[in-house]
């Protein structure tokens, strides 16, 4: 009789078989590697000033410049590789801020209920109604558009949907009988949150984090595109802004537009796929064919609710 594998290992076993999740994970890892090893991978250092001639401006792809050059005659490939850094940094840090706020508000509102919940949810609803992006644009424009400000603004405004999700999950976990059992044992609120609520809300938080990252990446790129990027850092959105406002369209320089855009799509898509995959693994639904029978009934029929055991 071997003991059952720890949850992490059994999670990995199921996740490995989830094609969507695995593709997303691999795509994300590749993006992270590219960002980390940018100095090694990039053929030129985009931060180094270079002397350019007129021929170097919007030069089409060539062996020297596989992705062509931009309006300043710089190598698009190098900028592209370095640009991943800003997207990833903003994506990760901003989403951690959002998830932290959303998680704390969601769990406390869901668990404690009553006036606290009313107040917090009222506030969340109001924040939810106020459109994020114009506010993000405004705040970044009026403070200084540097990396820290961008992260803070995106992070501090992006928690509302997480808070609602976490709250509803907390509510449903709270209803479950093992929480009542813990109370009957005499456990306090802190113990119940730590041992019973949080571990069961965690999978949702993980899935949500991944999706919030993709939103943060999208918001950052849009900000940069509108010209509100950290001027000292190259980012994909900024590259697109320069290309769009400095005549790449009329010059027919599609290479300056395609690479950074695809970079954003790659990153966002990887998070979306990973999020979908994680959700399927962590929150499995019996996707049996619906038009023939209810999945609840299948579970009943198969006796899935009860698993056979050992020792008898």
């Amino acid at each position, binding site marked *: 009789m071997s003991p059952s594998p720890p*949850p992490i290992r059994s999670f990995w076993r199921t996740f490995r078989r989830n094609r969507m999740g695995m593709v997303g994970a691999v795509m994300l890892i590749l993006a992270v590697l590219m960002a980390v090893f940018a100095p090694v991978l990039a053929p030129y250092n985009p931060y180094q000033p270079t002397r350019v001639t007129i021929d170097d401006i919007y030069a089409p792809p060539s062996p020297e410049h596989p992705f062509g050059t931009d309006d300043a005659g710089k190598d698009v490939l190098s900028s592209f590789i370095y640009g991943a850094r800003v997207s990833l940094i903003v994506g990760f840090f901003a989403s951690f801020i959002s998830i932290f706020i959303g998680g704390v508000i969601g769990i406390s509102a869901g668990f404690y209920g009553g006036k606290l919940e009313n107040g917090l949810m009222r506030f969340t609803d109001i924040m939810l109604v106020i459109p994020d992006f114009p506010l993000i644009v405004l705040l970044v424009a009026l403070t200084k558009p540097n990396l820290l400000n961008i992260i803070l603004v995106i992070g501090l405004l992006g928690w509302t949907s997480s808070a609602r999700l976490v709250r509803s999950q907390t509510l449903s976990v709270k209803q479950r*009988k093992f929480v009542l059992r*813990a109370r009957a*044992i005499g456990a306090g609120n802190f113990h119940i949150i730590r041992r019973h609520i949080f571990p069961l809300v965690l999978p949702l938080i993980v899935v949500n984090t991944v999706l919030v990252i993709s939103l943060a990446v999208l918001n950052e790129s849009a900000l940069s595109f509108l010209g509100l990027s950290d001027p000292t850092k190259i980012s994909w959105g900024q590259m697109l802004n320069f290309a769009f406002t400095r005549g790449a369209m009329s010059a027919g320089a599609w290479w300056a537009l395609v690479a950074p855009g695809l970079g954003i799509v790659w990153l966002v898509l990887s998070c979306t796929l990973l999020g979908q995959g994680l959700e399927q693994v962590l929150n499995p639904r019996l996707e049996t064919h619906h038009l023939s029978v209810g999945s609840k009934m299948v579970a009943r029929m198969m006796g899935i609710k009860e698993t056979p055991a*050992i020792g008898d």
Partner: protein
Amino acid sequence: MSPIVQVTHLRKLFPVKKSGLFDRNETFVHAVDDVSFTVGRGEVLAVVGESGCGKSTLALTLMGLERPTSGVIQIDGQNIATLNGKEMQVVRRHVQMIFQDPYESLNPIMTIADIVAEPLKVHGLVKNKQERQERVIRALEDAGLKPAVNFMHRLPQELSGGQRQRVVIAGALVLEPELLIADEPVSMLDVSIRAEILNLLLELRQTRGISIVMITHDLGTVGYVADRIAVMYLGRLVEIGPALQVLQQPQHPYTRALLSVVPVPNPRQRRERVILQGETPNPINLPPGCRFHPRCPVARPHCQQHDPQLRLVPVGHEVACLEVTPKELS
């Protein structure tokens, strides 16, 4: 010796939210309304009734998980309403609960050992790991999960329903309680394994002298386990008495009707069935007089005016009905 539980005039009302903004007349769900009874040491008391009769609220109130609106609950002679947090924790250790749904009452991501050890950690009862481990093993084996090492590192979903219910019982036993409150402990289990759980509970009563309050709607099984039976209707106790007496000579018309409709697994046995019409009304707008009179087959006009109290019929058997005449005390 004093009884382990003494409940006097217990009342638990839940306020109902009103939709009208200016309606200040608050209404209440009368979940438990003026209920008194005692549970002796080593006794099994079954509380039976249909859904909405207040039996589950009664269980939660006994556990201290709901605060009574009025009335007194004494456990081990202590009024639990007057206890402070620390004293309450001590009482709690001696009163443990078993739940209806063994699929739901165990946290799916905790191992069996963690689940059974949790009460020890919450109460800070053991200091070292080894002692904790020993007590967990003892509790599991006392609950019939032998050998315990085969189960300790498993997750609840790897066990069958019956085994899970044993884990719940082990989690209660690990604190060495004096009183168990069992809320429908077998109703979610397959018929063929119900008896083992019930027999286990009876065994614990024998070997450890644990008192049990069993909440159930299953009249079929109460006769096998209970010493006394209490019947609830709309928040009230309508009958309470020794199990066999209540089952074989029910006095209250509601008890009689209820017993008459329990299906008997014998096609040759035909009985007169008293099927009450309608369903239990909701406990918000209670009928005047006797709560049962609108559905009662023997109701008379005075039942609409007088709210009957529990009265002794023979010794130890109490009934709240105006139409039942007390027998001579013998």
